């Protein structure tokens, strides 16, 4: 598509064609191209062939999981209730989706309108991350029609999972509402946008409350398993705080990573405002991430000091812990600080990549690698890997499809 732009292709960014007639829904879905041109462009893209190969292998295995049960697809057991599906799909994807409430707060509450060009990307990253976390959860739980059970039918108000279920459901609704303005511009429904504008402060405040609570609640889930998680990754007093604080820089770093990828691979869809402000915004976000990282680093060691776990640092697990801290916290902290001091967006992008990898490693360590550290180590079933890759590929596909159509990376030209 980037090459087509050079040849004169102009993607749809208004409700009406140059002759004044409105674009039809089909034309908008086809990005203003004819069906032949659209499918030819899709077939030319090598990434689509990779996605097709993943779906060809993965879809039958996902169907098989629902037909033959969880035991066919995973090594899940009473010892290891959370495999790769939740370790990656829930515990990694949710913190990486914290960009939604971070950007909503920055723009709508703190009044930093200079971050407006990247706000919708932050919101979309949050919405899709949460939505696909629920998809992963559904693949793990099975029986999707019973999704409402923990909330309405079989209530467990004393359980952390009850709180997580309600928070994720309500926060997803809030995020959908926050993105309605983009949909309303694209569909030509100005009333919906006006309505959301009236309640945007309420939505943002609700987003902060729900998001901070359940990011912490995901950490609190591990207090169900004292003694199972290795002491260096477990702190009964600070677990919720570790998860909440790390979600702040994780969401911001993921936003930097995603915005960089869109700048490279979807330049055709970005407008000048987005492209011109991206480096400045990246450094601005890096500043927030650096402050969250230094706080996280300190509370991690306060957790170690509180439980007097210093002796574990000299064990093999301790080396692994220090590797995670070095790769996922200290390296990005140094790079983010350097990026801010030198106003260097490229350094901030490297830092964000390290921070994203670091947070993924931390969550997988907590939920999978160090889980049952005194027993045996579980290697996820190969089908679990395939299902995880397939669902994540679907996430990327949907993400790209939304970015290509809705006004997320560009400003809609109609005044509605």
């Amino acid at each position, binding site marked *: 598509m980037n090459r087509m732009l050079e040849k004169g292709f102009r993607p749809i960014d208004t409700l009406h064609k140059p002759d004044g007639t409105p674009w039809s829904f089909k034309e908008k879905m086809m990005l203003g191209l004819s069906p032949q041109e659209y499918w030819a462009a899709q077939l030319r893209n090598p990434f689509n062939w990779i996605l097709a190969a993943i779906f060809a292998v993965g879809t039958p295995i996902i169907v098989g999981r629902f037909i033959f049960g969880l035991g066919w697809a995973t090594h899940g057991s009473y010892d290891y209730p959370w495999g790769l599906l939740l370790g990656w799909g829930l515990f990694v994807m949710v913190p990486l989706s914290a960009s939604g409430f971070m950007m909503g707060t920055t723009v709508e509450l703190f009044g930093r309108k200079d971050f407006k060009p990247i706000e919708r990307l932050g919101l979309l990253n949050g919405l899709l991350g949460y939505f696909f976390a629920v998809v992963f959860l559904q693949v793990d739980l099975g029986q999707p029609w019973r999704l409402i059970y923990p909330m309405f039918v079989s209530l467990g108000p004393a359980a952390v999972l009850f709180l997580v279920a309600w928070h994720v459901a309500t926060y997803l609704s809030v995020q959908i509402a926050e993105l309605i303005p983009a949909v309303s511009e694209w569909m030509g429904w100005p009333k919906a946008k006006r309505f959301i504008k009236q309640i945007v402060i309420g939505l943002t405040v609700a987003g902060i409350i729900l998001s901070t609570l359940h990011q912490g609640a995901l950490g609190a889930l591990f207090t169900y398993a004292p003694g199972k998680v290795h002491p260096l990754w477990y702190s009964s007093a600070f677990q919720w705080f570790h998860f909440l604080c790390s979600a702040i820089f994780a969401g911001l770093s993921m936003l930097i990573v995603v915005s960089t990828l869109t700048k490279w691979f979807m330049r055709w869809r970005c407008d000048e405002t987005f492209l011109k402000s991206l480096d400045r915004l*990246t450094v601005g976000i890096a500043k927030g991430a650096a*402050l969250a990282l230094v706080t996280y680093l300190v509370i991690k060691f306060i957790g170690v000091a509180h439980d007097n776990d210093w002796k574990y640092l000299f064990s093999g697990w301790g080396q692994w812990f220090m590797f995670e801290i070095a790769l996922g916290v200290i390296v990005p902290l140094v790079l983010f600080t350097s990026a801010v001091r030198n106003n*260097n*967006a490229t350094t901030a992008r490297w830092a964000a990549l390290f921070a994203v990898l670091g947070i993924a490693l931390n969550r997988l360590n907590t939920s999978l690698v160090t889980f049952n550290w005194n027993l045996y180590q579980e290697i996820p079933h190969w089908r679990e890997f395939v299902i995880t890759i397939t669902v994540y590929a679907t996430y990327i596909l949907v993400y790209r499809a939304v970015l290509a159509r809705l006004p997320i990376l560009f400003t809609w030209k109609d005044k509605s």
Partner: protein
Amino acid sequence: MTTNNTNRSGKLFVAMMIGLGVMIGAWAMGAILFSLSQVNWQVSELLRSYLVATGAIGEFQTLVDFYSHIKGVEYLICLAFLVAFPAFFKYVNRPQEKTVAVRR
């Protein structure tokens, strides 16, 4: 007329709040000075008596026992962070110059 009334009530509210604050401040100051006079003007002894009174430490324990009890290293990390964070905040908040990035 309405604006005048609003201004007057606003001023009255501020005056009441200041008055209340002064009263509470005077009471707190009086209480601290009286307590200090009871312990021969030793601030650390006053703090120890407060911790004994609230049940945080036993009668026989000292302040050193107390911060050892709440784990000295943890306490020192927190204290260091309280100093380091504002310094770090200031360090990353220096005035902006032109942002640079490698062109692709």
